């Protein structure tokens, strides 16, 4: 199972994301944003957290138009898997791979703390490692995580079971308490919380590990 982890100027969770995939047994290739193609045989693209291009214009807007973006969109359109975390989630909405947009937190403050997430009743490779309805502890660290979408799209996303995670205590004003959302084919996940920061027992918290282990295990079989 091969994972490509992107790096933009200002990405700062790319190494952690690569390590989380490696620890779960994936072969990881790091990809610079100026590349125009993904390596052969990539199963999943990881779009990491950080502050790509300084959050200039809008969070994720410039990264979503970087040279590598077309290859990522093509990969997703062919049914490839994509995981965007934090700034990576913002990039995926800007690419049009996920609905909605991430706006300034309702309280206007940057929030850096561990929050409780509830695993949604969605059948997807990202959450299959957790029982539906389970609560997990995952850190957030963002200024623009207020997930916003129009009422019709919100009800469609909920009705189609595409809400991967919700916040137990909504920290940022996100509609429907949504912390993570899936594409229609359930192969693209964007989430604001950072599972890669709780994927190593050495740091005392492992609630994110199941996501990477399940991804690597199931995509290796596919």
């Amino acid at each position, binding site marked *: 199972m091969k994972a490509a982890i992107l790096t933009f100027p200002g990405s700062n969770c790319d190494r952690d994301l690569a390590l989380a995939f490696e620890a779960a047994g994936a072969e990881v290739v790091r990809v610079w944003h100026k590349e125009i193609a993904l390596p052969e045989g990539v199963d999943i693209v990881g779009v990491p957290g950080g502050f790509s291009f300084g959050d200039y*214009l*809008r969070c994720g*807007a*410039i990264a979503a*138009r970087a040279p590598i973006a077309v290859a990522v969109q093509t990969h997703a359109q062919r049914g490839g898997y994509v995981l965007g975390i934090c700034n990576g989630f913002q990039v995926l*909405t*800007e690419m049009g791979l996920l*609905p*909605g*947009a991430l*706006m*300034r*937190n*309702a*309280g*206007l403050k940057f929030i850096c703390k561990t929050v409780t997430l509830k695993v949604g009743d969605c059948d997807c490779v990202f959450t299959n490692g957790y029982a539906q309805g389970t609560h997990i502890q995952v850190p957030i660290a963002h200024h623009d995580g*207020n997930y*916003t*979408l129009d009422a019709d799209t919100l009800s469609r996303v909920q009705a189609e079971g595409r809400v991967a995670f919700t916040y137990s205590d909504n920290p940022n*004003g996100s509609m429907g308490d949504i912390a993570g959302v899936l594409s229609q084919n359930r192969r693209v996940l964007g989430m604001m919380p950072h599972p890669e920061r709780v994927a190593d027992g050495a740091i005392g918290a492992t609630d994110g590990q199941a996501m990477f282990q399940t991804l690597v295990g199931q995509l290796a079989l596919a």
Partner: protein
Amino acid sequence: MKARIHIMLKDGVLDPQGEAVRHALGALGFSGVTGVRQGKVLELDVVGSDKDAAEMSVKTMCDRLLANTVIEKYTIEIS
């Protein structure tokens, strides 16, 4: 030519920053402000003299990069 682009959140999209500014105005004693919306202005220096062509081109720039039309709307002035 100069192209001036005004980008605003669409009507109905909650603007937390505008709301904070409205509260701050109230706290300073400015009564009577019932709403504040915050947007941004971009000024582009554009080569050429054909206003219509420039407007078309700037519109494409807005749709592809400068505005996120999921939540934002924009107007263009060419001068």
